[in-house]
């Protein structure tokens, strides 16, 4: 089971950033990301400005860097891609740290890295300062269709149940001497995944049944 407070990405606190209404934070994140993505990749001072702004917000939120930085590993696939770009892109060549690389690749890779890092850091800040159910309430206030909000609510609610089930299945596999060492063991993992999928699907049906039993009418608007 997860800790006391909601979710693994959430860092409990009472800063102004934590207290700000969730829908405003969502809009701020969306606006920030649109501006970052729309900025041409070579406007380095602009990116420095964005980063300064973000660092300022994080400082106010008092979420420790030691908490945010390890969670930035989700960006790794993008980093790998960005680092490869100067080597695989074509066009005019240039010298960089003693290596001959593609000039277009270098600018594109740098831009991807900067925009990606800003995006990940901004999203993590939102997640760290906003409880999942507050985010859902914020999305409702932003008039996101009710069905979509409900689907997200179910996802958050059952994420722990499904990961717990996945963990128990892994333990049961390993208790019978299974180790996923090579590609040859992938079929076992694949059938575990399909079993998990079917179980989750069936659970979905049981949850629906339990909702109907308490008079849920899918046609009626709940709120």
């Amino acid at each position, binding site marked *: 089971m997860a800790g006391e407070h909601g979710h693994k990405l959430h860092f409990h606190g009472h800063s102004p950033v934590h207290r700000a209404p969730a829908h405003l934070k969502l809009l701020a994140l969306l606006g920030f990301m649109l501006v970052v993505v729309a900025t041409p990749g070579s406007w380095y001072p602009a990116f420095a400005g964005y980063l300064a702004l973000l660092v300022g917000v994080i400082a106010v939120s008092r979420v420790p860097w030691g908490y945010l930085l390890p969670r930035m590993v989700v960006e790794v696939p993008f980093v790998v891609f960005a680092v490869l770009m100067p080597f695989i892109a074509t066009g005019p060549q240039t010298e960089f740290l003693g290596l001959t690389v593609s000039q277009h690749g270098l600018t594109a890779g740098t831009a991807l890295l900067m925009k990606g890092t800003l995006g990940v850091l901004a999203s993590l800040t939102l997640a760290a300062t906003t409880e999942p159910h507050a985010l859902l309430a914020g999305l409702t206030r932003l008039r996101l269709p009710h069905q979509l909000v409900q689907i997200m609510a179910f996802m958050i*609610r059952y994420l722990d149940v499904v990961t717990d089930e996945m963990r128990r299945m892994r333990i049961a596999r390993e208790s019978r001497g299974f180790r996923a060492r090579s590609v040859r063991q992938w079929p076992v993992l694949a059938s575990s995944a399909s079993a998990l999928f079917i179980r989750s699907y069936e*659970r979905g049906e049981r949850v629906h049944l339990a909702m109907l039993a308490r008079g849920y009418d899918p046609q009626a608007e709940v709120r």
Partner: protein
Amino acid sequence: MSTPVLDVRGLAYAYPDGHQALFGVNLHVHAGERVALLGPNGAGKTTLVLHLNGILAPGAGTVAVSGLPVEKKNLQEIRRRVGIVFQDPDDQLFSATVRDDVAFGPRNLGLRGEALDRRVADALEQVGMNEYADRPPHHLSFGQRRRVAVATVLAMEPEILVLDEPSSNLDPASRRELAEILTALDVTVLMVTHDLPYALELCPRSVVLSDGVIVADGATTDVLTDADLMRAHRLELPFAFDPRAVPLSRGF
């Protein structure tokens, strides 16, 4: 006698794949009774339960709750009258907080504002979970989740509470706490279970369902001490458990 809370007559049902689960079930439960529904795995207990609030529609026969037939046009009222607590509380608890989950049923019945808050508080009070109202359900212990699941149904003020394996996966202390909660409730109870000592403790009357028909209906002590009946329907008491050595059911 007065109109039974639960009146099942000649109920038969076959699943769409052709598997026939019920072959003409007759069952009457009167107000204030606590009845155990016993039977081996695959006897059709869950199928029967799903007919009580119209999730499944009978192939033949009728179901009525306090005189109101279980039909499409009555479904909303039927589902208020029949409160089903499912076996896995995780199937029943899906909201961000305990309070939202308990409010789900009464909200579907159209309750809002203060009346809704009062229902939620009362239901949580009855299961002793008031102080957990703002916690996310998935952070509670299994026993607490089971109790909240009972509260989600009590909040609809049902006329009959149907419990599917209420004691499964509970530790002995949670099992006893749930028994105390259930005996304190002023509501008719139908309890589906394999836990025969629990049936004896809570329900003065037991009904045995086997292969889609009711094969016994009587005092729980009589049913559990009928060795031939028990053996014929794959019912077994725990090792060294003697129903005759047990004092009368709780609250009686």
